[in-house]
């Protein structure tokens, strides 16, 4: 599903965010990218949904080379992916429902289908009763789940989650990881970036360890 070949990413002159990264993720896999902050986890995610381009190397996502992709095609790539941002990026001026409906509109779902899909994903993350509430009135864990729900709106082939437990206490973090594993069990490829090694270990899935932009270890 995702193939990275010899990927380098350098910011400015000599800030090496990624060095010679080779990473292959199969369809339906769940992979944890673990490492301290600044190790390059987020950079890998951003390269996958082409928020950035690598300095060198090639990246294939769902069979398409995102490095050589024309800018025009980028929105269409992103519509096949779901991204959960570290800072959630939920809009304050509309309800949970409104936040999710935005995706439906952008991918061009008919209104009725969009509404059904909103109800569906909210049920999946267990927030059906909070549909009419504005996000900032929700707890951190709930906001995180709204963010995940939004990423699932377009039924993505790959779900990318950047520090999905970063702002949560341990108990909620486990809940969120469980939710992500659940989503993976339904067939979606899931990539999770986390600095919490213990959490990654507990999940018991393939984990890639990064340090200073290099893959230093893989488990199992």
């Amino acid at each position: 599903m995702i193939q990275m070949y010899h990927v380098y990413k350098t910011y400015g002159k000599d800030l090496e965010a990624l060095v010679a990264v080779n990473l292959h993720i199969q369809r339906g896999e769940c992979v944890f990218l673990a490492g301290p902050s600044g190790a390059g986890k987020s950079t890998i995610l951003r390269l996958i949904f082409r928020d950035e381009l690598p300095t060198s190397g090639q990246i294939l996502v769902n069979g398409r080379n995102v490095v050589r992709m024309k800018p025009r095609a980028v929105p269409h790539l992103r519509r096949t992916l779901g991204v959960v941002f570290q800072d959630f990026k939920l809009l304050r001026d509309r309800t949970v429902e409104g936040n999710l409906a935005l995706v439906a509109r952008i991918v061009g779902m008919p209104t009725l289908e969009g509404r059904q899909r909103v109800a569906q994903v909210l049920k999946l993350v267990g927030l059906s009763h909070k549909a009419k509430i504005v996000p900032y009135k929700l707890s951190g864990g709930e906001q995180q789940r709204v963010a995940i729900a939004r990423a699932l709106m377009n039924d993505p082939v790959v779900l990318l989650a950047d520090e999905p437990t970063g702002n949560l206490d341990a108990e909620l973090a486990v809940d969120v990881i469980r939710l992500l594993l659940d989503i993976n069990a339904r067939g979606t490829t899931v990539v999770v970036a986390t600095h919490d090694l213990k959490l990654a270990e507990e999940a018991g899935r393939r984990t890639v360890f990064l340090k200073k932009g290099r893959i230093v270890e893989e488990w199992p």
Partner: protein
Amino acid sequence: MLRKLRQISADAVTNLIRSGWGGLASIATIGVSFLIIGIFLILALQFNALVAEWREQFQLSVFLEDKITPTQLEILEKRIQNEAAIKSVTFITKEQALAGFRRELKGQESLLEGLGDNPLPASLQLKIREGHQSPAALERLSAFLSRHEGVEDIQYGQEWIERMSNAARITKLLGIMIGSVLTLGSALIISNTIRLAVYARAAEIEIMRLIGATKAYIRAPFLVEGMIQGSLGALLALSLLFGTYRLVAPTLMLASPLLSTRTGQGILEPSMVAALVGGGAMIGALGSSLALRRFLKI
């Protein structure tokens, strides 16, 4: 498609309302610019109509000596009728001239009482084709006519027409110059308002971008917002113009019979109204795209 258009317009209107005073200010600025452009347009049109009317009614008077013989008159008339420049000839006798003068002096006819003999000359009034109204052509014509026996004097008010058409030309030129400066200014002001709208929605734009919205999808509402601002500004200016004209025109018409009656009721033709509103929308679109290019990186 229709749903999309509706969505885009709804977004644009929402943005416009959210922009509040900023949006109103840019509409008002465009209104003022278009008001000035409109005033120049109306002035130029009035001048043109006036000049056209004058040109059509333009007459050259050939005053005849009292002692002119019927034969001389006949020869003169024949010569005149053979001139290509002349549209029509009317013979005014001394008596008709006096009667006309009397009409003009209405209320003060007593002035004429001490005159005794009719001092006014008979004349031929020549209407000149529009192509032959240049000062040089008239000069030639009047020189030719004055050589004839029995012709006393030749008069025409050509200078006035030339001055009027010059004034019309200058008005048009000034209008174009001031208009283009104001247009540019309006575009920049709209651009500024849109820039603020882009900033206000930065979070939403960022999310839309990351979710996979196309450039056009993100830009369209802003573009439409600018176009709405532009056309509303133009409409504002037009309603001010028409309103003022309604109020002022009756007194103006009375005060100055010079004012052309031809463009009287409409002042601006429907096509010009449409062009102004369309122009407003285009300036709005221009302003928006300026802002989007500079402030909306996708």
